[in-house]
């Protein structure tokens, strides 16, 4: 009795027959996918980082000095007395002051950076986004610091920090406050007023509308209040602040992703090309027998796609692994692998494989079937 098995295609057979070459090809794509996915997930992660704090504050509008809606690149100084005026506007439910600034300080002999926010500890609005351990509401002379800052500087609850000659006791560790170049810390607003000499000034007013209020018309009313104000709905304010990442890093990321893409194309292209050269006589035989060009092209594209897809699977798995492990060693390595990004990278791999097939296909097109008659 003859065993009858499903016969794999020529493309699969040729690919599997040269395991080392397949490994190089898959490895090349995997490396490319790994780099692309890590860069993109780092970008997404950082973009998210910037947004986390703003997103965590349950308000509808951020009111700043005109043109100072970007917390990283501008300083907003407003009179604290504006709070009462804002509260008078129809439709306004709550108004909260937020005082904050990026400062440098010395920790264990090293200069480090903190973005310190003073908030109303009675309401908690503007406070730590997510507590990991310790007290979530600092009292006077106390501070809640971010996890990354604590980890990098080997600080923990009950340690002390000296900021501008004032000593703060660390009472809590919070998360989601990593601003890449500096981390967030939270103190009572009274301490912030003293620290930054901001008793009569406020950096930002956080406005919450009354329930059911039309936000668009409230925005107009807030803007009409006085000139020199920028009233940003929360999402708009969030996006404005994300520009630190989107505008600074996007072009760099774009270049890196493009280079990685080219590396992938080159590796797959080269391995498929050498395989094609090596088998050019066999492709000539197929041509002589009567195989159509489309069949031969399909064979090449399938080989390229299989290498690409295997590389994608390996690269994606590796990128999850790298992201998982790296954060333990590099706290700033905050990544976020988004499914749409993974799907996008898969699309890029398919494009990569098809582009990589182009030169081998051209080579096949040039093969003269007559050569098969030569021994």
């Amino acid at each position: 009795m003859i065993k009858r098995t499903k016969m794999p295609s020529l493309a699969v057979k040729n690919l599997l027959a040269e395991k080392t070459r397949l490994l190089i090809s898959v490895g090349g794509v995997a490396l490319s996918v790994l780099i692309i996915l890590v860069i993109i997930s780092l970008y997404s992660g950082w973009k998210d980082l910037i947004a986390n704090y703003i997103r965590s504050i349950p308000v509808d509008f951020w009111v700043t000095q005109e043109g100072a809606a970007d917390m990283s690149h501008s300083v907003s100084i407003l009179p604290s007395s504006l709070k009462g005026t804002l509260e008078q506007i129809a439709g306004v439910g709550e108004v909260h002051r937020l005082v904050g600034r990026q400062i440098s300080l010395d920790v264990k002999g090293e200069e480090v950076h903190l973005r310190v926010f003073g908030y109303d500890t009675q309401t908690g609005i503007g406070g730590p986004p997510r507590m990991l351990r310790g007290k979530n509401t600092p009292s006077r002379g106390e501070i809640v610091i971010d996890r990354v800052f604590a980890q990098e500087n080997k600080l923990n609850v009950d340690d002390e920090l000296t900021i501008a000659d004032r000593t703060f006791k660390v009472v809590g560790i919070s998360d989601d406050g990593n601003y890449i170049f500096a981390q967030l810390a939270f103190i009572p607003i009274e301490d912030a007023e003293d620290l930054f000499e901001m008793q009569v000034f406020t950096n930002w007013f956080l406005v919450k509308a009354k329930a059911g209020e039309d936000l668009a018309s409230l925005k107009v009313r807030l803007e009409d209040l006085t000139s020199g104000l920028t009233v940003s709905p929360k999402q708009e304010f969030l996006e404005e602040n994300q520009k630190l990442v989107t505008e600074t890093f996007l072009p760099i990321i774009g270049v890196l992703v493009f280079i990685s893409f080219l590396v992938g194309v080159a590796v797959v292209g080269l391995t498929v090309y050498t395989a094609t050269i090596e088998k050019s006589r066999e492709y000539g035989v197929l041509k002589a027998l009567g195989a159509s060009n489309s069949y031969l092209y399909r064979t090449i594209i399938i080989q390229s796609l299989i290498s690409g897809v295997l590389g994608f699977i390996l690269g994606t798995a590796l990128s999850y692994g790298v992201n998982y492990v790296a954060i333990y060693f590099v706290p700033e390595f905050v990544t976020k692998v988004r499914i749409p990004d993974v799907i996008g990278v898969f699309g890029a791999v398919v494009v990569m494989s098809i582009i990589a097939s182009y030169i081998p296909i051209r080579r096949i097109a040039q093969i003269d079937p007559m050569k098969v008659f030569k021994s």
Partner: protein
Amino acid sequence: MKVLELKEISKIYDEGKPTEVRAVDGVDLAVSAGEVVLVMGPSGSGKTTLLSIAGGILKPTAGQVFWDGNEITRLSERELPHLRLYGAGFIFQTFNLLTNLTALENVALTVNLAGGKGKKAQEKAEDLLRTLGLEKRFYHLPRDLSGGEKQRVSVARALVNDPRTILADEPTANLDSKAGHDVAELLRDVAKERSKAVVVVSHDQRIRDIADRVLWLEDGKFKELAQMATDPTCGMKVEQKVENPHLMVGAETYYFCSEGCKQEFAGKKSHLPQNKWRSLKK
């Protein structure tokens, strides 16, 4: 009706250039079903070019090729490959089996190329390989087959889509005596029992024994075989021309394909009387 017919076929490479070569020059050939035609000739005489033109791989510069009365020379490069799958089977000197496919896959692939699918294609390939005595070699890769077995797989591949014409290029050149003899007989059986028109390009005497007709191609033209002599050293057919290397031994003239063969023959002259030798080397 002739299965294969070539009318006034010419093939000129690099036409109009200083490197112009007239490989085939106004050749006519007609082959019937069940007939084995052997084409012989010196190296570079245009045999392979003629075979390629007959098989629809190469377009002639002039002339017409007919398969079963249908002209294929009019067809486009796009149409010809598909036609080849059904119209002509090729057998090559170096077998040209696909190295990563088993014997069965090599044959079945040709069925697949012609549109045959899955189980049916496999069964068709199995049946043919079984007929050719290869039932125990289905799952062997070419590297695990002997030369004779490879050529039988190659014959199976040529036959599997049931083409009317089989074109073989030196099919026994890489085979030992026994395998060569078997393949020669197989080609005869293919012609006689399967009613194929078989055209073989070869220098092999074993093929000559099974051929219905022997043609001599030289300088792109068929010549009368009566004017040909056999090189006593290598057995190759050579034209009886005074320009060719030759030796007169008494009343007899020997013709050679090359000076090498002539020298080799002359080196063995010791068994003949010394005064019998007279070189007429040009």
